[in-house]
């Protein structure tokens, strides 16, 4: 009964729709064939990753336009597709090569510690609170012309909110948010920001090339070029050039020896808590550690198990390196040294 009612409707419907189908099917197929255009395979790939809803939320005229734009221009972000969200963004980024391969993370490091209380200002600056603008007025108000101006341009340009300004008017980098994108480095007019590998955690936080006496006049925490760090470093990492010490990050082992020796505190140690050395039971009491310890932390009676004063130890690892029986653990280089010793032993054994 019901079907009987529906039949005439069905008849017309199917006839009409079938006709439309044939018309469009042939039309579209022929059009697609006759007017085929060669496209960049990458564009095609991106296009397929996109939802294809042509919603326009990305600000481009549909998915095809966005795909073309994102492949063609490095300035177009891969995460503009709103319906696609993170998953699509990831795919697009991979296809377009906008996401770099995994490598050691890098962080922005501020190479100045001359905050409000330690650096001298040469005048009272009035004007736009932006370092790039402030430097146009008398070259910046810090007496030291290598110092951080402290008007927070880096914090402003950081796309990740990783930089905040401290009470000392110095930038503080939150390394959990910092991606090493170098935006701040590019924006800083005094070039006081360097982006360095995350593992390099002992740095001379000063760029002053002034003579030591001038630096001292301008700032309490500047590098005065005294050369103490050069003398104390076991790895020959720091070197002096134009009144400024510079640590070669390829040589530096982050032992932290220089940090304590620097008379002005210009060398900054980014390791929040230094490892402390401790003596293992296989100590033979040779006293070598006592001799090499730069901070007089190691000691004890000869032939007895030594101990290390945890309050003094800076975890520099010299004792670990010098200990003939690898009895001191806990320093930054301990695993490395133990491994080397083990390899040596095996080599000997095999020979």
């Amino acid at each position, binding site marked *: 009964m019901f079907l009987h009612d529906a039949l005439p409707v069905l008849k017309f419907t199917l006839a009409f729709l079938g006709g439309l189908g044939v018309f*469009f*099917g042939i039309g*579209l*197929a022929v059009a*697609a064939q006759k007017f085929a255009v060669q496209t960049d395979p990458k564009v095609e790939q991106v296009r397929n990753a996109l*939802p*294809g*809803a*042509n*919603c*326009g*939320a*990305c*600000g481009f005229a549909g998915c095809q336009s966005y795909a073309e734009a994102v492949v063609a221009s490095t300035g177009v*972000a891969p995460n*503009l597709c*709103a*319906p*696609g*969200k993170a998953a*699509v963004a990831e795919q697009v980024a991979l296809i377009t090569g906008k996401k770099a391969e995994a490598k050691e993370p890098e962080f922005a490091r501020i190479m100045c510690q001359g905050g409000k209380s330690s650096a001298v200002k040469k005048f009272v600056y009035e004007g736009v609170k932006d370092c790039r603008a402030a430097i146009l007025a008398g070259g910046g108000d810090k007496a030291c012309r290598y110092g951080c101006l402290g008007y927070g341009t880096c914090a402003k340009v950081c796309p990740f909110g990783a930089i905040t300004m401290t009470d000392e008017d110095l930038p503080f980098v939150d390394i959990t948010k910092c991606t090493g994108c170098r935006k701040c480095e590019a924006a800083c007019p005094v070039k006081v920001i360097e982006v360095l590998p995350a593992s390099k955690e002992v740095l001379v936080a000063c760029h002053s090339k002034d003579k030591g006496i001038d630096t001292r006049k301008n700032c309490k925490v500047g590098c005065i070029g005294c050369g103490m760090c050069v003398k104390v470093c076991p790895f020959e990492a720091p070197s002096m050039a134009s009144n400024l010490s510079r640590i070669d990050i390829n040589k530096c082992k982050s032992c932290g020896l220089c940090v304590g020796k620097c008379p002005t505190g210009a060398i900054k140690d980014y390791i929040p808590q230094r490892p402390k050395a401790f003596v293992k039971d296989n100590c033979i009491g040779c006293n070598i550690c006592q001799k090499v310890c730069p901070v007089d932390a190691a000691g004890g009676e000869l032939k007895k198990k030594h101990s290390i004063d945890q309050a003094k130890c800076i975890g520099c690892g010299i004792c670990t390196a010098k200990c003939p029986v690898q009895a001191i653990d806990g320093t930054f280089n301990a695993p490395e040294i133990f491994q080397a010793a083990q390899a040596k032993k095996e080599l000997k054994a095999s020979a």
Partner: protein
Amino acid sequence: MSAAQKISYFGLIRNGIFGENPVFRVALSLCPAVAVTNTLKSGLLMGVAVFFVQVMANISISIVRKLIHARIRLPAYILIIGTWVTVANLLLAAYEWPIYKEIGLYVELIVAFAIILSRAELFASKNEVVPSLFDGLGMGLGFMFALGAISFVRELLGNGALMGYHVVNTHPVLLFALPMGGFFAVGLLMGFFNWIDIRFFGGHGASGAGH
């Protein structure tokens, strides 16, 4: 259905309501969010219509996904969606006539909603029937939730009523009952949710297309 699958299906639904809410987060399908949310009832009914179309479209596209030629994927999907929209339209007209008279045009326009097409392409055309069903459920529910929230605010402010029952006995803010009040309601709600996101969950507060 294993326990692990259940969780992921639940995840799909939750994703639709919160993570990728089609209105507040993805910011698509905005016209009905503005136009038919002046009362809770029509808002919810519109939500039901979209829910129905989304679920049915997801299912049917998932079924036929391997048969459709790549060249005509888009037209074919639109046709499938159009079919279900017509079905929803006819059913509403037959069984919910009074409300249908108000929201009819917008039900017909569901066919042009980017959200349905984009879920079809993004999800249903790449997944099996059951996950597609749950994705449709999630998106549909998310849409219903959003429309419910907007129309709740608007009916309360604009008519001093909820589901047609007067709850506030004052001269209401007529603006919110008018369609243009939808713009303000949607804008303010979006801002409000962003504010919550920033204030309490440390989010970036970027909603949808508005990067």
